[in-house]
């Protein structure tokens, strides 16, 4: 694995992380195109480290607005911390359930099966990307609602919600067309 290959993968990860297009799938496809094996332990470690790098980038970029939103008062911190804990626990529970299901269906409960083996399955990636695309198109048809964070900001009397999850107006007016900024896996 050369420096140029690492640089290309880092650029792909950095560009795709913010977009709802699965940065993991893009990195894995880039690895395949460069003749690398995405299921190899050194490549899966690289994939995780690339995600860690962009995670720190997101933290650095949004730190000021997060500090203002989460640490402005004790009540704001408690409410936001609760949302984060609940969301993290639910995500972890869904992930663990999926992991067990995949182990049973794809791995036949074999003790040698590792989830990383699926990283080389192009059909599975294509189906997952297609499903994500359909969900994005369908979700774009739904009217937008205020988020819990924007309601919190409205209660505080703020004119604008400064959270990265909610960058549109936190008023009683209908939400504008802009979408909140997320960090995507």
């Amino acid at each position, binding site marked *: 694995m050369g*420096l140029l290959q*690492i640089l290309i993968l880092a650029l792909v990860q*950095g560009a795709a992380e913010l977009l709802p297009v699965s940065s993991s799938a893009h990195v894995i496809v880039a690895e395949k195109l460069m003749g690398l094996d995405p299921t190899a332990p050194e490549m*899966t470690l690289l994939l995780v480290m690339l995600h860690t790098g962009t995670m720190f980038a997101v933290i650095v970029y949004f730190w000021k607005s997060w500090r203002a939103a989460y640490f402005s008062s004790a009540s704001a911190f408690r409410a936001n911390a609760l949302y984060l804990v609940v969301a993290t626990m639910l995500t972890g529970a869904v992930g663990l359930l999926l992991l067990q299901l995949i182990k049973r269906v794809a791995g036949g409960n074999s003790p040698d099966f590792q989830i990383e083996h699926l990283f080389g399955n192009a059909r599975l990636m294509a189906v997952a990307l297609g499903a994500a*695309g359909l969900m994005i198109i369908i979700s774009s048809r739904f009217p937008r609602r205020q988020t819990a964070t924007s309601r919190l900001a409205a209660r505080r009397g703020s004119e604008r919600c400064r959270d990265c999850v909610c960058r549109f107006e936190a008023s009683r007016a209908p939400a504008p067309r802009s979408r909140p900024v997320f960090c995507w896996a």
Partner: protein
Amino acid sequence: MIAREAYRLYKALAPGSATVPEGWMHFVGPSLLGMVLSFLAGLGALKWLSRWLEQGHWHFFGVYCLFASLVVLWIG
């Protein structure tokens, strides 16, 4: 996740090479470099894309994902 993948790499390298620091760093070094580079790339992309994303065009990403899925199938 980092610990899990590092352990998976450690097990893959064993026996022998994992006990040699140079052998271990040969695989961990690129990952650390990748983390630093993706941090810089992510920071640049965030500055560039965040304003653009806020203007909507949500469904474009759905169309792109469908197109990307076909490309992935084709690359196989």
